[in-house]
């Protein structure tokens, strides 16, 4: 519970900070037509976020008062689940960043099969099945991009310009 609350606090803090910054920035525009709507929307968003933060704090205090052994046990279990979820999300996010970087370097047509092979092999799949899927996906990609005339970035190593 504490983990979730902490996470939500951070989210709300970032949200409030962002809206404040954008609102203040919008205030500097000279024309009314440019700044009016952003100011209204940022103002509403700020009000809602502060209200949400107030609600969270009130609920948190209430729950702390009701704290008992079962709750602590439950809290520990959900915290562990949440951390493992977050770890899987982070790993997935890192894999995606890696794929984007590979696309930068060698383009879509090489990085995609490479990503598939590496990902599947590191996740316990057999090497031949990983290669087979990578080849099939690569072939489908090539055919689709050829017939639909999709522009596939070739990668800076193969003459792609960023």
């Amino acid at each position: 519970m504490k983990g979730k609350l902490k996470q939500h606090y951070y989210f709300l803090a970032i949200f409030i900070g962002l809206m404040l910054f954008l609102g203040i920035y919008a205030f500097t525009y000279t024309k009314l037509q440019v700044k009016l709507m952003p100011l209204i929307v940022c103002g509403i968003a700020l009000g809602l976020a502060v209200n949400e933060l107030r609600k969270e704090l009130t609920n948190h205090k209430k729950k702390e008062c009701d704290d008992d052994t079962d709750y602590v046990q439950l809290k520990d279990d959900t915290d562990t689940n949440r951390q493992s979820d977050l770890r899987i999300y982070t790993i997935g996010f890192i894999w995606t960043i890696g794929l984007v970087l590979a696309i930068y370097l060698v383009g879509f047509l090489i990085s995609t099969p490479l990503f598939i092979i590496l990902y599947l092999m590191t996740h316990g799949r057999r090497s031949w099945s990983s290669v087979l899927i990578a080849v099939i996906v690569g072939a489908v990609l090539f055919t689709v991009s050829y017939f639909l005339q999709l522009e596939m970035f070739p990668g800076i190593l193969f003459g792609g310009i960023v």
Partner: protein
Amino acid sequence: MELNYAYILQSFVNGFLNLWELNIILGMLLGMVLGLVVGILPALGPTMVIVLILPFLFGADPLFALTMLTAIFAVNYTAGSITAILMGIPGATANMATVLDGFAMTKKGQGGRAIGAALGSSAIGGTVAVLFAIIMMPLIYPLVMAMRTPEMFCLILLAMCFISAVTRGSPTKGLMSACLGIVLGFVGFQSSTGAGRWTFGNIYLYDGISIICVMLGLFAFVMLLDMRVSAKPLAPVNLTQANDLRELWEGVKSSARHFSLWFRSTIIGYIVGVIPGIGAETAIWVAYGQAQKTSKHPETFGKGNIEGVIAPESANNAKEGGAFLTTMAFGIPGSMGMAYMLVAFLIVGLTPGPKMVTENADICFAMLQALGITGIIGAVICFFGSAVLLKITRIPPVYLFVTLMPLMLIGAYNANALLTDLWIMLIIGLVGILMYKNRYPFAPAVLGFVLAPFFENYFWLSWNLEGIRMFDSPLCIIFILIAIFVVFYKFFINSCKRLFRLRKGETA
């Protein structure tokens, strides 16, 4: 523009004739295949596949693109009922109520009959709802044509309030999500003055953030990562019950025998679909509840009563007819999934709302007709091929992840051929993860982003023409009052309860 019934009739016929062009038929077939596959896979939903397809629809023929997407919606819930009945795992959230009695029937060895009833009621419910929508089209014309810019402004305001406040979870979170979407939608040139807004001198931001990046980042990326966390391959299922055609046919006949039940459920589904922002999840439970109340054997519900399968399955398919009508005619998404359909309209170059119905009525009619036709064909495919479709559930989610992730990145790049879009999508994806983990809905953000420029344009156009008097038309007043009620309804209800309790205390 005057109400012209000849134009409506001509559009209806044109729409129907256009459906039979080869590319449109192929598009609908593709849509049906995708809809059936994602319907049967609990890890994927129709919204996910639509979001992944959208980047590839730039420049496509509007009718081809829209009928294909319509076909996905038409067959998705039909396929989802098969896993709900045989495995107890709903293919989509709209099939949750079907699990209660459908799975109980499977345990009794009546799975084939339950599937037949689900397919029959899905096909009939969907088709009848489409007929309702087609009949309603000419009837809503006067209302649609009464819309001027002030009314459109108020209507967009109402749509955003509806989708934010009615969404699952806290209305505050829904509204915050909508505000975030609007803020992202304001980035770039302000259309009436040409001045840059929140661009920080960056050339990329002058054109605004790409709609594809927002959709893929906020929805597809997060859902793909989530699939790694939550999805597991489904256990193999005994296919004997799905293969028994005689039992399946018995089920279809049962759904026809319960005429009044599916008709009532269809009407419930249709009405829920017309109301903006409320999804099939509401329709199925309302239909299930009324089926139990009106049943001769309410005590058998949840233990394998076929009425508990017919009611939710009629309602979830009927909902689409109503939702499509609201989305096309007023530009207000009838459900969360329709918010993404709005984006599809914009991508193919159509403006949803009154203009869509008055200028592209043939496409509107064609979409409704495609919804009905593909719904029936989808049910027939499921009738004969449910055993084959069930084999798809054995695909491990890890294979879906590795094939869909590159596809998503290709889609993000393909929209503008800019690698910067990939990074922007990842940043928005990070925001999406934080939103998802803290239970903030995505649909209001997407809707806010899509409607933000229209919202601002309509406001300034109306303000420059009429000033504060822009709000004094009856329609504007009605829309604003409904919007206020939708946002503050919990507060109103609580206040009324408190007042009632106080008075009760005084009299005691």
